[in-house]
């Protein structure tokens, strides 16, 4: 069992490395207003975060994540470009379902993080190389993906705007996504809308329903998506290989799906930039679906470093979240990429080395 002090020492070491990389230290509050976090993450975060009530400030949350308060602070007053680092506790409930696990995960743990707000296209490689240098000595394997690649692939399908929007909205929910693909790939049966005598009730308006019914009726006349597109998309989503082998596979896929060509070019440039920083690409696994299981606010490059330990979360993870800065920026936006390392896991790896 490793004490908090030891974990704190590892965290301070990581923080010093982040400062050496040009970051200014920032110390967000532990007690955060719940509203923007809830709106962003939805019910998932209510299940996992400690929510409490303040008589004056309303619903508050014990910090479940650093990215949101750091982005908020930057969007309020930050200059560009900006590099921030931080070290502090994160609080997460673990709802165990029906059976209590033998080794429950920690409810509070340290995160050391680095966030980079910059319009420089080289920012992804800068961040990844920084994390790689700090984490790979512990034998962690790097995985990377790109949500922009998947979103472009979906946007490039020969679908109506409605259908493409529904698919990209649910790209983080594989079951729902697959059901939509199936539905769009077969003729839509004509749908009956039952009659009712019930009075109108609730805040959803009659007009909203009328518009959705019209959309559904128009959608029934749309020709099914040819099966070859499902096959191509499945092939793309299943691509998982060491980075140097993934690249030719991506180029081949781009021949069939021209919409992903710009994203593939971006990925190739990023990989080259990473290699230029002295990192061996053979040791990195490119997983096209990597970002689908991570946080929903990543919309570009994503990465994680995974130790060979049963049941462990990633030692480090991060990604690009341009759209989040737009949501939280109240009119402003800036490309941003960031990530966190868990000092507690590093301390455990050091202790067992």
């Amino acid at each position: 069992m490793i004490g908090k002090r030891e974990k704190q020492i590892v965290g301070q070491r990581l923080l010093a490395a982040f400062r050496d990389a040009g970051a200014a230290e920032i110390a967000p509050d532990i007690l955060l207003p719940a509203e923007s976090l809830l709106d962003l993450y939805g019910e998932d975060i209510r299940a996992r975060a400690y929510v409490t009530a303040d008589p004056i400030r309303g619903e508050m949350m014990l910090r479940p994540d650093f990215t949101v308060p750091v982005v908020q602070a930057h969007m309020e007053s930050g200059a560009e470009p900006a590099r921030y680092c931080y070290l502090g506790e994160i609080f997460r409930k673990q709802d165990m379902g029906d059976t209590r696990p033998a080794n429950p995960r920690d409810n509070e743990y340290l995160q050391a993080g680095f966030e980079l707000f910059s319009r420089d296209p080289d920012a992804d490689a800068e961040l990844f190389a920084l994390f790689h240098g700090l984490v790979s000595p512990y034998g962690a394997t790097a995985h990377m993906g790109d949500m922009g690649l998947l979103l472009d692939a979906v946007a490039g399908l020969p679908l109506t705007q409605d259908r493409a929007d529904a698919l990209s909205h649910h790209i983080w929910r594989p079951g729902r996504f697959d059901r939509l693909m199936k539905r769009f790939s077969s003729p839509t049966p004509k749908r009956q809308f039952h009659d009712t005598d019930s009075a109108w009730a609730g805040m959803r308006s009659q007009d909203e329903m009328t518009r959705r019914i019209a959309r559904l009726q128009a959608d029934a006349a749309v020709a099914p998506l040819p099966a070859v597109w499902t096959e191509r998309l499945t092939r793309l989503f299943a691509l998982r290989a060491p980075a140097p082998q993934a690249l030719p596979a991506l180029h081949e896929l781009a021949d069939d799906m021209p919409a992903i060509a710009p994203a593939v070019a971006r990925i190739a440039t990023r990989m080259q930039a990473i290699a230029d920083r002295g990192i061996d690409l053979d040791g990195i696994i490119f997983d096209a679906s990597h970002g689908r299981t991570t946080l929903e606010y990543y919309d570009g490059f994503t990465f994680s470093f995974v130790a060979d330990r049963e049941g462990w979360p990633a030692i480090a993870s991060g990604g690009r979240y341009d759209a989040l800065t737009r949501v939280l920026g109240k009119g402003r936006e800036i490309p941003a990429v960031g990530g966190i390392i868990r000092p507690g896991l590093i301390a455990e790896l050091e202790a067992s080395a």
Partner: protein
Amino acid sequence: MIRLGVPSKGRLMEQTFEWFAERGVTLSRSGSDREYAGRVDGVDGVSLVLLSAGEIPRELAAGRIEMGVTGTDLVHEKLAGWKSDLVELAPMGFGHADLIIAVPDCWRDCTDLDDFAAVARDFRAEHGFRLRIATKYHRLVRAFLARHEVADYQLVDSQGATEGTVANLTAEAIADITSSGATLQANNLRILQTDPILRSQATLFANRAAQGPQMSAFLTQLGLTA
């Protein structure tokens, strides 16, 4: 001594008494109707504790009673990790109720969970906040909707008169326990066509740590084998 917790009032208490009586154990309230003390005849070493049905899960888990009768809905909702603390001894065949999701009946375009997910997405885009589901079963509803990958909603707490929240504009849909659906109908609500979140009924539970020869003997007498 086995302390047996039983709901302290209403149909649930009466039916529990009948269930035990059919198995040769007579439970009764001692003294007046207002007194929450009870007596047990027909078996030794068992005492009766009358409690609010909602408190029985907690009392069981804490080990302050060894056995108890309550709805599966309450155990599953209130006790995270309940299987580690409690044993489900016997479904009792009454107190049936389903935990369901209901939407306004006037939503002619919303019949199943796929519709519901689509309506929630549209609602959020239109109104700028997530579609609200009123419920007191937060954990069960959230786990169910996560399993079915429904997003774009939020839960709002409703500890009573949940069917009224839609008309009062404090929620767009509800998730609640229903047995006949009559209250839903009266409030112009309709159950979504999907498996219920949970099929609940009155169930005899025991604290896992309290199992032993004494409990086995009692269960044998009740015609149950633990």
